[in-house]
């Protein structure tokens, strides 16, 4: 579903990702762990198509299509989703308005008002979000945890076939973590998931198939769930030689 081949990415002339390969199939959950600044968010952003990142060589395919053919919004409409590490604030735009527009543009057929409201209510109930969220402005004055919940709410509504989750677990308390994990597990069987995280604790609730260690823009080691435990335990220094 997602294939990354020998990817090199630079930002403002600085090389960040330096030859990265990754394959994600439907139904697989992948985890990427790595130090701050390793290039994890860069990878997620470049897959989604952020204009600030330049692919200097290599390629990315989604469902067999080279991604450079697709504009950002087309990637979203094709089923890709990024849960942002730092979601943008959109002052004056109500969450409800935004969600409706987003869902209408991603789905082939925009849902009828009543159907959409029902769906929205159900998803919000599942994430234990209060209705008052809908009239607040997108991410404006949101706490870290509220922002992450809104990201997951969007994921549930957009039902992506590829979900990139960038530190969605950071800043969440135990209860919120459990709720978010439930959301991920709900879409995971039908989708490919790439979870970027620093912590094992999310992985108590979401069982990954593969864990990758990223150092300085490359994946230096891939393993199963046990690698996450080892990384949390030992840190990354022991892998530096491999980079």
């Amino acid at each position, binding site marked *: 579903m997602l294939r990354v081949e020998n990817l090199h990415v630079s930002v403002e002339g600085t090389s960040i990702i330096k030859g990265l390969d990754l394959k994600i199939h439907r139904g697989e959950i992948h985890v990427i762990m790595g130090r701050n600044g390793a290039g994890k968010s860069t990878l997620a952003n470049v897959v989604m*198509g952020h204009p600030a990142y330049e692919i200097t060589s290599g390629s990315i395919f989604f469902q067999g299509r080279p991604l450079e053919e697709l504009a950002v*919004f087309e990637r979203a409409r094709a089923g890709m989703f990024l849960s942002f590490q730092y979601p943008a604030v959109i002052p004056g*735009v109500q969450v409800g308005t*935004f969600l409706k527009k987003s869902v209408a543009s991603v789905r082939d057929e925009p849902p009828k008002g009543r159907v959409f409201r029902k769906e929205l209510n159900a998803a919000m109930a599942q994430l234990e979000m209060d209705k008052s969220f809908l009239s607040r402005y997108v991410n404006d004055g949101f706490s870290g945890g509220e922002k992450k919940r809104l990201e997951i709410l969007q994921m549930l509504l957009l039902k992506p076939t590829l979900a990139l989750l960038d530190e969605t677990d950071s800043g969440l308390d135990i209860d919120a973590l459990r709720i978010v994990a439930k959301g991920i597990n709900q879409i995971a069987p039908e989708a490919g998931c790439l979870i970027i995280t620093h912590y094992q604790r999310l992985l108590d609730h979401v069982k990954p198939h593969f864990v990758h260690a990223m150092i300085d823009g490359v994946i230096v080691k891939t393993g199963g769930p046990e690698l996450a435990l080892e990384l949390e335990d030992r840190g990354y220094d022991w892998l530096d030689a491999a980079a």
Partner: protein
Amino acid sequence: MNEEALEAVGDYRYGFHDPENATIRFDKGLSEQVVRDISELKNEPQWMTDIRVKAYRHFEERAMPDWGNCNLLESINFENVTYFLRSSNKTEKDWDDVPDDIKNTFDRLGIPDAEQKWLGGVTAQYESEAVYHSIREDLEEQGVIFLDMDTGLKTHPELVKKFFGTVVPHSDNKFSALNTAVWSGGSFIYVPKGIEVEMPVQAYFRINAKNMGQFERTLIIADEGSTIHYVEGCTAPSYSTDSLHSAVVELIAMEGAKIRYSTVQNWSNNVYNLVTKRAVAHKNATVEWVDGNIGSKLTMKYPSVLLKGEGAHAEVISVAYAGEGQHQDAGAKVHHLAPNTTSNILSKSISKNGGRSSYRGMLQVMPKATGCRSKVVCDALILDDSSRSDTYPTMEIGNATADLEHEASVSKVSSDQLFYLMSRGLAEEEAMGLIVNGFFEPFTRELPMEYAVELNKLLELEMEGSIG
């Protein structure tokens, strides 16, 4: 609006024009005789003719304002303007009786659709004069007067004489002199003591003819303890030559009264929109200007409030959108003349495709006006490098007890905001439209629902097709 008409006018939604079927049309150009003829045609009392003539003489002598976009102002050719055009012989009370061509226009604009839904009353003005007017019976029974200005002068000459020109004298500026000389149409409203008009009343102004000048004159008097919300919308078709809109609006809020005056002005991009709007607020009265400027070639408009009585309050919320070839020079003026008066000014502007928007403000606190409070916030959003925004705030503070706040910001749409919205499936112009609507939201939420929806649609249209 049909497809054909849309195509013909490009981006501008209300740019269609109907065949012009005038029953009376004056020759272009202005002279004392034209002024006298207008007055005579309307069968006005002598005192009004005298005011007009005096104002005309002042207009002739008076220099152009020396602020704003003086180059653009100098390009107005007063000789090429039609100062009076009558398109229907009387003002109808029943919509069915309005001539078909005029009715078509307003039907396309959604009037009187809006009336049925939520309004207390409607006046529709086409070219120089009102063509349709109605007011809800219950309001009429309570003594609320809502008329077009010409009828107001005929039926309530004593009220008009008492207040006309008391807030905006003809000598205020060149354009108020011009308006006083050739005014026609506009609204006249009187709300008796203690009456609260809950439903907004509405006026709709439309220029249809080429090189037309529209000079409506509006006078609203809210007697003690009364409240009124007046809404006005303006449109004109696109012609290759310019039209001139130069209105004067006077508001008088007596003790404890509240007036809200909301405008969504969407003139086409060849209209000079030079409007003098001013209010007097007496003791504990509130005046709110909610002022949206989307269209026109040049707008110069600074809704003002004279806070004359102790405890009076002014609120001015305005937005301006300046696109290609447009200059929106707008702002607010508040004069704190009495103690413990308060004011809030919020101004938001967007410039795009080389458009220019300026905030021009005046805040004055008189030496005797102790304990005043004022907050001014100006936010500008610039959408590309070719566009421009300036702020010209003036403060004259004659009193050390004043509590003043001033905030100004200029921002651009960040690529992270656009990326975020696009990653949720919105195309770039949709994303831009949403951000722009959000930026204007503090204004839009103050509007009646239909206007808010309409404004958002207009802004989204403005964002289309112009992103590289």
